[in-house]
């Protein structure tokens, strides 16, 4: 009976190739946890910065703040209404 040398060689080669591939991929992914941790920390920092900026923006665009700033800058409330009306005709042609 002839030994299936070729078939066995192919199988062994495939096993070796797959093992090497797995090692390469595992090696590549082994540091991805660290990278993910860094990304998540970065996201958290941006999230916090966004919140602080949103808070500042809303506070500075509030009427309460604008009115107090306007008062400091010397703006006062207008006590008179000025409106432009049509002049009254002297005579109306019937």
């Amino acid at each position, binding site marked *: 009976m002839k030994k299936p040398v070729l078939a066995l060689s192919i199988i062994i080669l495939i096993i070796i190739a797959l093992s090497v591939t797995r090692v390469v991929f595992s090696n590549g*992914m082994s540091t*991805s*946890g*660290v*990278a*993910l*941790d860094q990304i*998540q920390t970065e996201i958290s920092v941006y*999230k*916090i910065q966004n*919140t*602080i900026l*949103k*808070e500042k923006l*809303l*506070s500075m*665009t*509030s*009427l*309460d703040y604008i*009115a107090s700033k306007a008062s400091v800058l010397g703006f006062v409330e*207008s006590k008179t*209404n000025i*409106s*432009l*009306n049509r002049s*009254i005709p002297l005579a109306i042609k019937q």
Partner: protein
Amino acid sequence: MIWRYRVILVILILAFLAVLSRLFYWQVVKAENLSQLGQLQYERSIGNLAERGEIKTSDNFPVATNKISYLVFANPKQIKNKTDTSLVLSSQLSVDKASISAALSKDKYWVSLKSGLKIEEKEKLEGLKIPGVGFEETYTRFYPEASMAAHLLGFVGKDDLGKDKGYFGLEGYYDRLLRGKEGTAVEVYDALGLPVLQEASNSPEKVKGNSLVLNINRAIQFITDEKLKKGIERYSATGGVVAVMEPATGNILALSSFPSFSPSEYGEFGASLYKNPSISNLYEPGSTLKPLIMSAALDANLVTPQTKCNICDKPVSIGGYEIRTWNNEYFKDINMVDVIRHSDNTGMVFVGQKMGIDRMINSLNKFGIGEGTGIDLQGETSQSLPPKNKWYAVDLATRAFGQGISVTPIELLVAFSSIASGGLRMEPHVVGAIQTADGKTIKISPKVLGRTISENTSKVMTEMLVNAVNKGEASFARLKGYRIAGKTGTASIPIAGHYDPNKTVASFIGYAPADNPKFVMLVIFDKPTSSIYGAETAAPVFFDIARQILLYYGISPSEE
């Protein structure tokens, strides 16, 4: 030899069965527990707090939003030097040392130390690297306009389980819509505690709360808040209310009331301040009720503007009571236009007697007096009208000029605005639209509650009210050039069975421009002391606010 084989075979079979039964125990009986135990080693649940919906004014500016804050917790079992740690935490968190010490002495793995910590405070404490102390990210309500419209907004407190819950105002009324649905996310970690590259599985049921877009106009609300505060100081009143509504739609444009509270520090204020006086306080409206009674009598053709009062030349005696005018001046054969102009109580007694009890009750019901308005705020009250058999002749007389009957400011505003809107009583609405978490907008349409008077009667009544503004007691304060319809009110306060002559509720109600009203407004001062009359307190504030609103809307004067 055979028996030896058999013994070994039995031993092997028993051993095999023992292994099999143990496997069955771990794989079937204890499978769930082991699975959970395993998950704990490589998975961590991250609390995914659902953000509470925002409350925005009509210009889409959030008057109630969220900001990130932190809850500080500790694991007492990891803290070795509890005395020193308590001292440091106490000074950093501004919490007394005894409370921190007590928390750290507990035989627990997790104790809460303080919530609502700001980002800067958290970073400062984190920098100290105290072992056994951790932080949990939470959301706290943030009010960019500080305490503006506090009664309207309500506040967010905690329920029995320590979860956020809205109380009073919009936070209370729309709590279910505003609160989101909390969820959890799972992250997978390796043996070193580093996250493994895979998407955190978000719990699908986590939903952000819906946001509310109000009909409240931020500029008008700001104006009313400022003017009311100044008015209360100027007239030394104990409190006040300003309510502004769009008569054609029932949209509430502003709702101010003082004394008030700060929604972000509600715990520092007395619980009595949480109630919104605009919807919860009952008061006798006095002369501001007269236009409702007069318009009902006009609508029923019981009187016309030219009808002369034949009992107005002297005080009117009914059931042993003597009814006088507010200034003790009497006008013989005064007509209905001047009854409103002079706010003549005897003239209103004449109108009340013409109406009779049945028609009076029916008219008040049409105006929604005693029924509540259905406004979308938590805490609305109302006082039902007494049954017909409890009405005496003197009640008919006094209720015709607004004494002996109680209403809430919003009830009166809604009833009065029906005169401005051609006789249609609209349901008041603070919220104009709901923005769902998935970006959809659901608009709330105006709702007609019923017709109070005919369109023609509303026009006649408007002219009588414009005349009252131009020639009545408050004419000194009116806005020249604008046609404004309005009525003053000075109601005595009932105390222990009688009316206190020195304590009043001073008010003014009106709308502008009279021919095409953009707003109807009610101004109330509670127990003003510099003057007790509505014409001298509430009316000037009304016209001051009205001037600002007309300017804001860009409405120019219609008369020279």
